[in-house]
């Protein structure tokens, strides 16, 4: 991998893309074997992996829109990376098809025999029915794809030459996109994950999911930049000052995530109503308890303590460790949300969990790398680029 110093373009994207594609294809073949051996396990594993990898695209979309809305300066050097994350969404949309095909295995409310005997779900069929579910999923992805394309197109136009109109349209797109983003991710998490247990509901679930999205994304983009710089790409462009800011955001969202997670738990604990507590009961049973402890300590307490000082936020080795740690925790968090609906009395980690993870991860990274290496690695037309490169805290 080499970079052209003047245009900020990769002159040789290297073999990374091919490796990701091979990993994705191999994972997909193995997952297919998994589908034939245990379809129910396959669909649940697939759902967890799918949601996990889609969150990074969503994080990219959010970060890009936020950058435009707050007129960000320091984050200009990261913008193209976050836009490349966002541009994985159109491709990842294809991978939602197996979930729609596996609806009957995943969601009790889509099985007519179950609904016939379940009074509570009968009352919810106005929302939870096959047709509306599919329409909603298509709508979410349409919103994300449309706004990703719009933002990316304007961004490439900016590379050719900056005009004030470009800044205006970036802000307009982001303002509308941000509102639709909030609704779409909330209902996306309601539909794909919360409705696994159709009796249970939590209005803060969407905010909890959002905390995970942004935390996962921030960890991924920091790790991605660090790995790029290990290969001498963008060194001198992304500096420790940018990592410092990213780490501060990670620290903030570790706390945000914990705050939301505790708020959800706390109200249900206080109310102590069986239909609400059941969800937590399943997640505190048998070996799921271990997952619960891992999430409390690993997703909150450990990163909170490690990232507290300024020195650790400016230490690349520490940042790399925290990012890998949080990416693992983010997966465990989603696994903990999805899989207890299949294994109610204890965790059974299956090999299909790993193959679906590798399959979707391989394809995600392939799309990410292809998009990222095709265009300049930083928005070269942005008038704030120099200010961002020379940014100090």
């Amino acid at each position: 991998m080499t970079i052209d110093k003047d245009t900020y373009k990769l002159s040789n994207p290297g073999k990374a893309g091919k490796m990701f594609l091979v990993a994705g294809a191999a994972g997909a073949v193995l997952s297919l074997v998994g589908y034939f051996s245990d379809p129910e396990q396959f669909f649940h594993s697939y759902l967890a992996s799918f949601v996990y990898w889609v969150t990074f695209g969503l994080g990219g979309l959010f970060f890009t829109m936020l950058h435009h809305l707050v007129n960000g300066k320091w984050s200009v050097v990261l913008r193209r990376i976050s836009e490349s994350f966002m541009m994985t969404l159109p491709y990842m949309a294809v991978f939602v098809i197996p979930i729609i095909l596996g609806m009957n295995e995943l969601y009790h409310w889509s099985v007519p025999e179950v609904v016939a005997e379940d009074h509570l779900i009968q009352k919810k069929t106005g929302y939870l029915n096959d047709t509306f579910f599919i329409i909603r999923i298509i709508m979410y992805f349409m919103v994300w794809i449309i706004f990703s394309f719009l933002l990316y197109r304007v961004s490439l136009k900016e590379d050719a030459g900056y005009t004030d109109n470009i800044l205006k349209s970036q802000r307009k797109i982001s303002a509308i996109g941000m509102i639709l983003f909030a609704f779409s991710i909330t209902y996306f998490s309601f539909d794909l994950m919360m409705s696994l247990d159709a009796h249970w509901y939590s209005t803060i679930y969407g905010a909890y999911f959002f905390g995970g999205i942004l935390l996962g994304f921030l960890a991924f983009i920091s790790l991605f930049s660090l790995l790029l710089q290990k290969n001498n790409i963008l060194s001198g462009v992304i500096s420790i000052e940018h990592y410092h800011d990213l780490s501060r955001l990670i620290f903030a969202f570790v706390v945000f995530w914990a705050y939301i997670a505790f708020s959800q738990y706390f109200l249900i604990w206080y109310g102590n109503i069986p239909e609400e507590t059941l969800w937590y009961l399943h997640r505190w049973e048998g070996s799921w308890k271990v997952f619960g402890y891992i999430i409390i300590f690993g997703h909150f307490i450990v990163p909170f303590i490690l990232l507290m000082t300024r020195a650790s936020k400016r230490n690349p080795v520490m940042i790399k460790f925290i990012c890998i740690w949080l990416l693992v925790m983010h997966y465990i968090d989603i696994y903990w949300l999805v899989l207890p609906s299949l294994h109610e009395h204890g965790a059974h980690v299956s090999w299909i969990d790993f193959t679906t993870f590798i399959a979707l991860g391989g394809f995600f990274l392939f799309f990410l790398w292809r998009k990222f290496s095709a265009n300049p690695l930083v928005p070269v037309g942005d008038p704030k680029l120099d200010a961002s490169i020379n940014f100090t805290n």
Partner: protein
Amino acid sequence: MNGKDTKIFGILAQFGDPGELLQAAEKTRDAGYSKFDCYSPFPIHGMDDAMGLRRSPLGYIIAFISFFAVIGGLSLQWYANAIDYPLVISGKPFISYQAYAPVGFGLTVAIAAIFTFVVMLALNGLPRPHHPIFSSSNFEKVTDDGFFIGIESGDSKFDTEKTKEFLSSIGGKNIETINN
């Protein structure tokens, strides 16, 4: 006395603009002075580095205090709810740490905020109703368009004549001696 005089607070010099003040601060720092201060109508970016100031220990002090605030907040509720006046609330155990969390969190934030304010003032040597430098009538410009450096007599390198020469060599105007 080696040119030192306990009656003298320090030497004050005026500079033309924020850029000059920043450079003068760097030169003063490089000349080995450490007990000096810069005065300007507004904050100047990069001044901390130019003056060679260390990072404030405030964060560590507050972290230390917050640790005890958490312990204090939680044990207050534990003592009140489980020891002093045990009361069954919606069938929960007396020691329900979940219910202690919001109050523990709130107390920690409140105590940390109050102590941040108080400790910040203390570290800055505030409140300070009078400062010897106010005796200079020229110094009144500091709230408008005056930029000053004052090297204090407590500095180990301080010498009335030499410090005056030094300040004029780095571009200081209206140099005057401030008495205590």
